[in-house]
């Protein structure tokens, strides 16, 4: 297998959601009927199956903990089989929470908002003619609590930019759950028409959200940054988009801390722009700053790192 083929096969988007739609439906149904406590033994069995058969996922979580322990100097974070299994359990828990979020069972009052920069007020203001902004999320924690965020904004439309074919699955589930306010927009490559569309959405006061911690497969725009002490490819997309659209950029993260969701919102860039000839360097700088912030958040809830695929440069063994 060529190196490119190997890279393609190892890429997160190539990872089929192993039977997950059916399983999620079943689990969702069971969770509704029996309650999560009763479901717990069954859930352990399901998770154990994925744990035992997902060798690559196990290895990538181990790698995450190794880098986290080394970079933070906290030897207590070294990977153990129990810790890796707990990661899978945390992911299952997250999936169940996502279903709760979609059917509205997770109320806004149950979520704690940490918003030192007053971004909620800005979200509300865009309802009254303000311009929209960009939210950059992460697969650390539960991204779907974005949905709760849309509720926070009281009907401010949120457009979620996604890269993959998984969209079809998610849209179907969203639709079944009656979700209307959130729109998924599939982005494979930045083109002029898409830029104009996004720009007009911002002008209308809509907000854009996208993940900052996954690299699209077919887009060569990546920046290699230092993440937890090792070189890792990060997407340039969010930062490129921010600079082109010239809109404020905010970071968003939703971690479950002591059984309760905490949404962290913070301003990242006020007016992103680059000097002529400095574009790549500027974007690489933003990507690095983002990776640094993400690394700090990882220490808050390492168990909620849900990137179950090789994350770092394979060449850097």
């Amino acid at each position: 297998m060529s190196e490119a083929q190997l890279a393609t096969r190892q890429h997160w988007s190539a990872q089929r959601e192993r039977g997950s739609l059916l399983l999620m439906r079943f689990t969702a149904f069971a969770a509704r009927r029996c309650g999560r406590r009763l479901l717990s033994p069954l859930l352990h069995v399901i998770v154990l199956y994925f744990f035992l058969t997902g060798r690559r996922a196990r290895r990538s979580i181990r790698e995450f903990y190794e880098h986290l322990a080394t970079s933070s100097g906290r030897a207590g974070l070294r990977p153990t089989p129990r810790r890796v299994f707990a990661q899978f359990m945390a992911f299952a828990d997250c999936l169940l929470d996502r279903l709760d979020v979609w059917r509205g069972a997770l109320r806004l009052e149950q979520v704690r908002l940490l918003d030192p920069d007053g971004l909620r007020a800005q979200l509300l203001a865009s309802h009254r003619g303000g311009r929209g902004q960009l939210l950059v999320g992460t697969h650390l924690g539960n991204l779907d609590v974005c949905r709760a965020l849309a509720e926070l904004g009281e009907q401010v439309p949120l457009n979620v930019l996604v890269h993959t074919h998984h969209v079809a699955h998610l849209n179907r589930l969203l639709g079944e759950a009656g979700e209307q306010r959130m729109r998924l927009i599939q982005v494979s490559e930045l083109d002029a028409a898409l830029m104009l569309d996004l720009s007009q959405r911002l002008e209308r006061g809509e907000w854009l959200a996208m993940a900052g911690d996954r690299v699209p497969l077919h887009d060569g725009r990546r920046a290699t940054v230092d993440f937890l002490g090792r070189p890792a490819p990060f997407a340039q997309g969010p930062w490129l988009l921010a600079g082109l659209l010239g809109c404020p950029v905010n970071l968003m993260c939703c971690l479950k801390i002591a059984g309760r969701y905490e949404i962290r919102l913070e301003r990242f860039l006020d007016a992103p722009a680059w000097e002529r000839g400095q574009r790549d360097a500027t974007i690489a700088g933003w990507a690095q700053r983002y990776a640094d912030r993400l690394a700090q958040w990882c220490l808050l809830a390492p168990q909620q790192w849900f990137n179950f695929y090789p994350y770092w440069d394979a060449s850097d063994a």
Partner: protein
Amino acid sequence: MNASTHTALAHTALEQELAQLVIDTLNLEDLTAADIPPRQPLFGDGLGLDSVDALELALALQKRYGISIASDDKDARRHFASVASLAAFVASQQAACAN
């Protein structure tokens, strides 16, 4: 920049405006509109712009002239080839809107 190798035609008013738009949008501070002959390629060997510059230009055109490029517009590349082709595109779009 090898502007001298291109036919140095004088700018029309719209071309002049667009050359200035290119300069302002992309912060080409060391250039004036006269440094971008109408038929000089904007991308590659000409002015040396790239695909991200093209996106910036597309946004600026939309803001200034209210024109947009459809996603299935295979001619987009051709429209952006030079200041002259941009001018032709803008003029045609404006004519289309006036009708």
